[in-house]
């Protein structure tokens, strides 16, 4: 970029000082090692370090489904502008074991610095530090190496020892003394050996770094969440953990029942009392909830289902990311009833969408699905949340006269009443009359079908008039259609390469907001999604007739690398 100083400055210690020819000031830090070596923690600390410089960050953690050993890595990309994705090539890579070294030694930018453990890696390229052998002098050598990443980072970005000390005292409180001593050893070694430093320019403002699981939990809580039910399953578990940890502060009760069937049925029972309920699961667990989902449709229960996607089918790849359940999420449960599905396009948007779905479930007394992915729930970025934007509908309550749970109304939505009440409140899984009694009468069956259809029509009217159902970013052709967390990858690719196009992201997928999408018919279209069969493309074609000239799909469990994605988009744009 002209002017140069927009970019990272690079110092060549033994060759004067030059400016790194980058068109952007993105700096990427990679730390890799075995599970248990604290790579995720090191990523978080690095992110906090960048954030203290008022820079924006995006952190992604990559880990297999195991507890000790294996190969974990954390990627943190930072820029003074807003940043929506990690980059796969690092400016600084710290690799703590042979496996990480083998996998990542080439994942460097042009002037990238590679630091590895010379005890573990023989004849490595880059800067070897005797990390494991230095660690042997400490009480817990396996744990202590976690601090390596931050010590090396401090040296490489030219932070002095005082800054490093403050950081370690704050972030590594457990056995802080040992951590400090070890960090000094690493820092001094690194200082001696590194030939290149990066200066990170300060940004303008700072916002807290939150993971998608946190913004979802906070958004639901803002909209009135009282009870959260979940059975552990990646990638929904972080929401359970977050809400359990913040239960008192947020006034939320978390419950871990025996299985997903109990989860969903308990949540419906809780909703019957007027407590706002939500469940969290992933594909397999959501399969087990199908019957209860349909029950929620029938009794008109107000429950939000979080569905976190990972690569399927079946058990699939538990700790990675995919968007293979879009079509599955649109019609869960047997029978005809209104369903709501929305998928947030960023960690920030997840806050608003979680809140809005709780609100919609309560307005329309029907189950709603918050569809997301591992990439969104478990990655972190700076978020600027505006709590004032959150709506929490006071439900349409019964006020006077004889109470009928399923009273016919113009909107199809019947007023609510919760026990204890002098009036009888019957929610019924069988087809029922207005009072809630079981019925097999032909006219009752037809009438209740019409009531639920009317509710669906009211829901669509409300979405059309009151809800932002589609996001649009940028201008010009082509239109790049995408959804969910892939939106972040697309937006970052566009920023990275300075592409000219219109990114179109349907937030709502059911009811599908065709009313906002028909205007794109006839324009040059591209669809980007993280699945193999092109589910968004099918949906777009079916609902709007939009037929893309090109599809970009990635289905290896990994989120897009914005650099590669930009390359592919550029080919299409021409």
């Amino acid at each position, binding site marked *: 970029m002209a002017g140069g100083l927009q970019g990272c400055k690079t110092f060549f210690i033994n060759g004067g000082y030059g400016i790194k020819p980058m068109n952007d000031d993105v700096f990427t830090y990679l730390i890799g090692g075995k599970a248990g070596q604290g790579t995720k923690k090191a990523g978080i600390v690095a992110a906090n370090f960048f954030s203290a410089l008022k820079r924006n960050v995006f952190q992604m953690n990559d880990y297999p489904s195991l507890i000790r050993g294996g190969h974990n890595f954390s990627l943190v990309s930072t820029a003074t502008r807003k940043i929506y994705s990690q980059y796969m090539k690092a400016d600084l890579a710290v690799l703590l074991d042979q496996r990480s070294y083998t996998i990542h030694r080439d994942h460097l930018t042009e002037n990238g610095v590679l630091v590895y453990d010379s005890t573990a890696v023989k004849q490595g390229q880059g800067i070897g530090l005797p990390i494991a052998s230095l660690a042997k002098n400490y009480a817990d050598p396996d744990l202590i190496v976690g601090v390596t990443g931050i010590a090396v980072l401090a040296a490489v970005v030219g932070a002095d020892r005082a800054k490093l000390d403050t950081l370690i005292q704050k972030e590594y409180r457990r056995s802080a003394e040992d951590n400090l001593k070890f960090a000094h050893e690493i820092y001094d070694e690194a200082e001696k050996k590194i030939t290149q430093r990066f200066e990170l320019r300060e940004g303008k403002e700072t916002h807290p770094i939150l993971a998608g699981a946190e913004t979802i939990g906070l958004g639901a809580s803002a909209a009135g969440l009282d009870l959260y039910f979940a059975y552990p399953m990646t990638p929904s578990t972080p929401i359970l953990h977050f809400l359990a940890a913040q239960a008192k*502060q947020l006034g939320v009760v978390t419950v871990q029942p025996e299985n997903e*069937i109990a989860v969903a*049925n308990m949540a419906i*029972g*809780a909703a*019957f*009392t007027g407590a706002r309920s939500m469940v969290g699961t992933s594909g397999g667990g959501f399969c087990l909830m199908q019957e209860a989902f349909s029950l929620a449709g029938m*009794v008109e229960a107000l429950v939000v289902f979080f569905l976190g996607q990972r690569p399927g089918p079946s058990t699939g790849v538990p700790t990675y990311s995919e968007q293979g359940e879009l079509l599955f999420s649109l019609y869960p449960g047997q029978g005809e009833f209104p369903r709501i599905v929305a998928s947030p396009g960023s960690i920030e948007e997840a806050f608003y969408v979680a809140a809005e779905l709780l609100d919609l479930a309560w307005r329309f007394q029907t189950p709603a699905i918050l569809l997301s992915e591992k990439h969104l729930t478990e990655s972190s970025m700076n978020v600027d949340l505006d709590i004032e934007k959150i709506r929490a509908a006071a439900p349409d309550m019964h006020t006077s006269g004889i109470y009928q749970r399923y009273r016919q109304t113009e909107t199809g939505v019947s007023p609510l009443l919760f026990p*204890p009440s002098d009036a009888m409140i019957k929610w019924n899984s069988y087809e029922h009359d207005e009072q809630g009694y*079981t019925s097999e009468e032909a006219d009752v069956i037809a009438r209740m079908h019409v009531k639920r259809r009317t509710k669906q029509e009211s829901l669509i009217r409300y979405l059309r008039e009151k809800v932002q159902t589609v996001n649009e970013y940028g201008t010009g052709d082509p239109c790049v259609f995408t959804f969910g967390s892939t939106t972040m990858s697309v937006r970052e690719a566009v920023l990275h390469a300075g592409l000219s196009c219109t990114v179109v992201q349907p937030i709502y997928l059911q009811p599908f907001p065709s009313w906002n999408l028909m205007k794109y018919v006839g324009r040059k279209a591209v669809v980007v999604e993280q699945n193999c069969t092109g589910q968004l493309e099918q949906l777009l074609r079916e609902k709007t007739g939009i037929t893309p000239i090109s599809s970009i799909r990635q289905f290896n469990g990994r989120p897009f690398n914005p650099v590669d994605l930009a390359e592919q988009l550029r080919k299409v744009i021409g």
Partner: protein
Amino acid sequence: MADELTTPAENTWCPGCGNFGILNAFKKAIPKLEQHGIDRKHLVISAGIGCHGKIFDYVPLSGLYSLHGRSMATVQGIKLGNPDLKVLTFAGDGDAFGEGISHMIFAAKRNADITVIVHNNGTYALTTGQFSPTSGKGFKGPSLPSGNVEEPLNPLSLMLEAGASFVARGYAGRIDHLADLIVEAVLHEGFSYIDVLQPSVVFNNTYKEYNALVEIIEKPAGRLEDAVQLAKRFDRLPIGVLYKVSKPVYHKELYGKWNPAVNRLMHEERKRRIATYLSERLQK
């Protein structure tokens, strides 16, 4: 007989069905519970799917007519939502020990403060008489005309071993006795299980056998082992409370005196707390 607890729903049980005895016992229990300070509006019911479940339509109480095998989870959710409510569910033997056995075991294990009344007729009656989890070996039904090849489950000993803090057996043919059991079960704080011997006049007519074998026990067993012994008796069928013990209940262990539906935080308070959380996160 029509009374103030009769609903407009047409009763479709077979004439002579044991379910009538359970319905009548429950109707007798309601005013007795009111005498104990549990008013009707705080009594919330659920039911599974099967002949037994129709009882949901036959009493004018609030509740949620659940799925097959899931009503125990439903009422646990209701209790967690608003612990001021007294929750009770009816279930069939197929519901409780076929489809929903995991919920039964866990409700007992965590001592959820709910009452489960199982209409145990040893058959899937509404689907025309297949063998059920409690059918005896040799029981003949349309899905196994040559006779059931499985041993039956013993619901009482299973619930005792799972940790139920109140376990009783009643008989649909002893209405007053059953009514008192229901009252005691609802009053008991913790997981209360009542196994009701229920003849199915069409598919498993056991009136004669039960009339000859049931024997009222006056006092629960003092020790769990003795209660299990009682549950395993077949020469006589003891009815009454087999076991009763006081233990901490699930919702109180989970959140103390909180009540999610009643104490729910107001919108402004929630916003304030989230703002606090966000500013703390920023300072970290």
